[in-house]
């Protein structure tokens, strides 16, 4: 078992490369994915090694990218589309929710649409407008799409491959702030967890914290800080946002009696809303406090100088945990 230390960016790059090696039908499409390797360099070196026919630099049009990817998927390819930043997925929104999401259903299973739409998402990188959005709820609300997100390099490596190998369209959200944040040991010969499964990442007994993507790290730090004060937090990395893998969540909440969800997306109608509704329905008699939600405020994403205040952080998460404990 040999491991390498990799960042999330590198792990995704390796995962994409592996997927392309494993299956000649896998294509990469997007703006600047070729020579430049994408603005985040996630596709670095792939065009050089797999050629312009498999790593396709596109005109500047997101609907065009996704729409042509639909056609390629119908022809038997497995396109992996890169959307340059979260805020630029919206020109492709129609193709995604009306075409990508529905193709299998409307054809009664005759047409399949294996296709991955990679979206670097979330804030915290000091960017200008439209570069720090968290659009997951809108996709998770759309039947026919699957939505997953990785929080660390090892998941990045495996999940991107699993998403590409999966036969349904997958919205693959990459927490861009984590791209180069930390390195982790990657063992390429390991057996990965299933794609559509949440994961308990820290055991605890006083309250359950649910996080995903960029907030998993925050949640783990919060748990560490809380343990110093005698509060034991259980942390679950949701990983899959649609479908949600709720069984482990229910188990946990039945034990802890308290639940806090944290995400960067706006609180109003964010994933936290759905989770709160489900947890309350399933664990009604176990809950000692309502499910509390910590997230981006219900305002547009702010100028970057105050994004760290706007984004949910360790303190705001712990504040919610306190409120939950005091309920």
């Amino acid at each position, binding site marked *: 078992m040999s491991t390498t230390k990799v960042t999330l960016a590198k792990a995704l790059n390796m995962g994409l490369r592996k997927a392309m090696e494993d299956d000649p039908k896998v294509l990469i499409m997007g703006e600047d994915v070729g020579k430049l390797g994408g603005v985040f360099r996630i596709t670095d070196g792939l065009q050089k090694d797999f050629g312009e026919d498999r790593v396709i630099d596109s005109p500047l049009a997101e609907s065009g990218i996704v729409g042509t990817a639909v056609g390629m998927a119908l022809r038997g390819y497995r396109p992996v589309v890169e959307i340059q930043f979260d805020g630029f997925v919206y020109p492709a929104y129609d*193709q995604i929710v009306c075409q990508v999401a529905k193709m299998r259903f409307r054809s009664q299973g005759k047409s399949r649409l294996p296709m991955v739409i990679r979206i670097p998402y979330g804030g915290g990188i000091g960017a200008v407008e439209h570069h720090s959005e968290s659009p997951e709820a809108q996709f998770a609300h759309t039947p*026919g799409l699957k939505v997953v997100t990785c929080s660390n390099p090892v998941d990045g490596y495996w999940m991107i491959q699993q998403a590409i190998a999966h036969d349904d369209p997958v919205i693959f959200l990459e927490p861009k702030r984590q791209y180069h944040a930390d390195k982790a040991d990657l063992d390429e010969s390991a057996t990965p967890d299933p794609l559509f499964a949440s994961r308990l990442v820290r055991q605890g007994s006083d309250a359950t914290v649910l996080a995903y993507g960029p907030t998993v790290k925050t949640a783990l730090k919060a748990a560490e800080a809380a343990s110093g004060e005698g509060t034991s937090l259980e942390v679950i990395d949701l990983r899959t946002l649609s479908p949600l893998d*709720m069984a482990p969540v229910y188990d946990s909440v039945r034990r802890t009696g308290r639940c806090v969800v944290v995400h960067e997306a706006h609180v109003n109608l964010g994933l936290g809303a759905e989770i709160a509704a489900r947890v309350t329905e399933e664990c009604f008699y176990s809950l000692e406090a309502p499910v509390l939600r910590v997230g981006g405020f219900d305002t547009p994403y702010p100028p970057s100088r105050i994004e760290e205040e706007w984004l949910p952080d360790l303190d705001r998460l712990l504040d919610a945990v306190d409120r939950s404990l005091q309920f």
Partner: protein
Amino acid sequence: MSDASGFGPDLVEVFGPSQQDGGPELVQLLTPEGERVHHPDFDHDFTADQLRGFHRDMVLTRRIDTEATALQRHGELGIWAQLLGQEAAQIGAGRALRPQDYVFPTYREHGVAWCRGVDPLQLLGLFRGVDQGSWDPAENNFGLYTIVIGAQVLHATGYAMGMQRDGVVGTGDPDRDAAVIAHFGDGASSQGDVNEGFIFAASYNAPVVFFCQNNQWAISEPIERQSRIPLYQRALGFGFPGVRVDGNDVLATYAVTKAALQRARDGQGPTFVEAYTYRMGAHTTTDDPTRYRLSDDLEHWKLKDPIARLEVYLRRNGLVDDAYFADLKAEADELGHHLREGCKALPDPSPLSVFDHVYTEITDELAGQRDTYAAYLESFETEGAHR
């Protein structure tokens, strides 16, 4: 570039608005009077069998349309998108295809579906509300109908890019080389997706024919709202050829589409074909065109009927006889019967079927919803009505 402003003469004036007769650029091989004319670029020899074939296709396609319209009137269909008047455009395009070519239709491509061998009964499902297209797109290389205007044009372009990657373009092997045809309307030409389709196709030189049936109307919006110059010229700005063909002339439409498809198969890239035609019926059976267009217009276009002109030609040249027409009528009647009986017999889907095919394998989440719902439905059956 010679007038005062430096921007050249007013283009709108030069090109003129869309003329009722299609203007001088119109490619025509058969006049409305049924006269065979020749064209320097797109001439073509047709066998008698071919000509009769076109006629038969158009007559039967019109019959499908008439039957479906009647079925809608009788409440058997929720709505129907009529193609009356557009038979030549569709049969011309449809017959120009090879089996290995692939079609991305709108919601009105009943004639093309016919050419692809899709059982017309299957077209009714969507309009009856029992399915959203029940044919297998892979079987006849005929995609599902697309309701969202223009979306399929990008799919077509991507599919053509896939063909390029499959090495079935420009090999010189007629059984192998393939192309895609993307159908859309004059209204659709205003959608971002359609223009992006042009851009991608040009950029990658994709083997796709953009086949636009300019039937002069997008519901109540006249073509002038979408373009102030003849639509086929849109292609020039994207760097590929455009041509306007008489869409009520099945021979010309066939010849032009065939050439355009061959260009694509040969690896010469995209072409825009504007089939200049007219929507003689309503937009759909729920539309009332008297609110927005003059009956004069319709009268004018009736004189250009695509079937009538070919019939005149066939009769005048002795290519058909009474037996031909009798056979055709019988065939049409049988088709009508098939549609009427078949339509009424189309089974409603089970309410639980909605949970199928959302995903390759049903998710636990959705299975839960299905099971709860199934139990709920069962409670009615066992207890009788809930209240």
